[in-house]
């Protein structure tokens, strides 16, 4: 009955559709382009300022287009802030944390999914709670632990504690979830931790893992 009722209306909608959809698509493009421009503006403005001399920057009508001091400014910043060294440091820390996290998460997720062993529950929840306590919350005591280990001022002290951070736990859980993708839920004995899995969520989590520090 529902079908017979709906039919005339869908026909009408189908006739009307092409025109409406075009208009809709046009607004969509306008809105999206405006958002992209608005989102990019602060970065563009920061770049513009980086190409101006100090006097150009401080004169009152701000000039929102690039000037000539680009090379001089970047060369000075590179030397004064020792950016070469800092980039190397950042690369070491980022690669160390990323690789370390991925390796340990992969191993533990593999164990949780493909083995039954005593204490599996405990291990899973132990990793799960790291989601709840971001590093900044426990930063002071983490520093103390690092200093007890004698790791202050070392790359170890900068990287290893971050492997225990929330996303480290998250990647284990996600690796677990992805490994059990076809079932849609991950059974940890006793409690069924069902993580609703959709393509959207997984892409989101991948973005989190990629984008987070």
């Amino acid at each position: 009955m529902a079908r017979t009722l709906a039919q005339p209306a869908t026909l009408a909608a189908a006739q009307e559709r092409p025109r409406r959809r075009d208009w809709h698509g046009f607004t969509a493009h306008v809105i999206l382009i405006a958002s992209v421009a608005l989102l990019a503006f602060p970065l563009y403005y920061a770049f513009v300022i980086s190409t101006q001399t100090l006097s150009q920057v401080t004169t009152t009508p701000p000039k929102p287009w690039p000037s000539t001091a680009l090379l001089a400014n970047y060369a000075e910043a590179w030397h004064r802030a020792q950016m070469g060294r800092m980039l190397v440091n950042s690369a070491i820390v980022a690669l160390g944390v990323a690789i370390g996290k991925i390796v340990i998460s992969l191993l533990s997720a593999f164990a949780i999914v493909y083995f039954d062993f005593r204490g599996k529950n405990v291990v899973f929840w132990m990793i799960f709670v790291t989601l709840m306590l971001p590093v900044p919350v426990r930063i002071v005591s983490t520093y103390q632990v690092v200093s007890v280990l004698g790791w202050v001022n070392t790359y170890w002290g900068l990287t290893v504690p971050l492997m225990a951070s929330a996303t480290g736990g998250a990647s284990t859980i996600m690796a677990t979830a992805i490994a059990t993708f076809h079932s849609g839920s991950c059974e940890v004995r006793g409690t069924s931790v069902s993580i609703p899995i959709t393509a959207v969520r997984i892409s989101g989590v991948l973005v989190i893992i990629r984008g987070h520090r």
Partner: protein
Amino acid sequence: MKRSVFPNRWLPYLLVGPQVIITLVFFFWPAFESLRLSLYRASPFGDRFIYVGLTNFERLFRDDAYLRSVITSFVFSFVVTFAGLALALLLASMANARIRGLAVYRSLLLWPYGIAPAIAGIIWLFVFHPSYGILPWLLSFVTAYQFNWFLKGWVAMALIIVAAIWKQFGYNLAFYLAGLQAIESSVLEAASVDGAGPIRRFFAITFPLLSPVTFFLFTLNMTFSFFDTFGLVHAVTQGGPGDATSILVYRAWRDGFEGLQLGYSAAQSVVLMALVIMLTAFQFRFAEKKVTY
């Protein structure tokens, strides 16, 4: 699902070993250290710790500056979360059409998410700066009010709120767009046949069907603005002017590292931990009952 299980006794322990050790040493040890330290006070030279019971907590809840930080934190997080989500949902529903190049738009909108909070703050600093920023200059044509975040607390707050929303915006938008496109158009067509206008359709159908996405984004944005914005505050305002932008995470760090009041800072960490645990418990209960998947 039939899951293959390997019958090995020691291999699984070997596999979870690294994760467990790192979690124990760098998660549980610091957490318990915070709990323990919160009951102590460091001596003036930092060489001894004196047991003081719950004095640190008592002091915390009598400290007006701390209570102001609590309010600051909640205001900041709620504004960032609600304004950010509302803006993203509004734009997403306006831009929801099957158009070409959606993937291109998505990446062009998503890149700020990859920027560290501290850098996001610095980028916005240029826009807000009282002497060379473009925003105070533009506003000077409208009003004589000085939008100087060095002097006005709320301008500084606006600066970090805008930077935080900016960083999360593309991410929220991408999720809402994906969520909207997953809604069956037949449901909406049925509603319009029944005479529901666009606004009624949005609140009766679209918004409830988006509730899992909203819930996920709410959680993510709350945790982000509550905890991950430390770098933003530290790089841009350092909690100032006065105390206007010192959110809880920043205060805990400052009292510990700069004030060297380790016990007091640990007590703040413990309060934050309790807060996170409450938040998580609430999320799980809420997720099970109210959100329809």
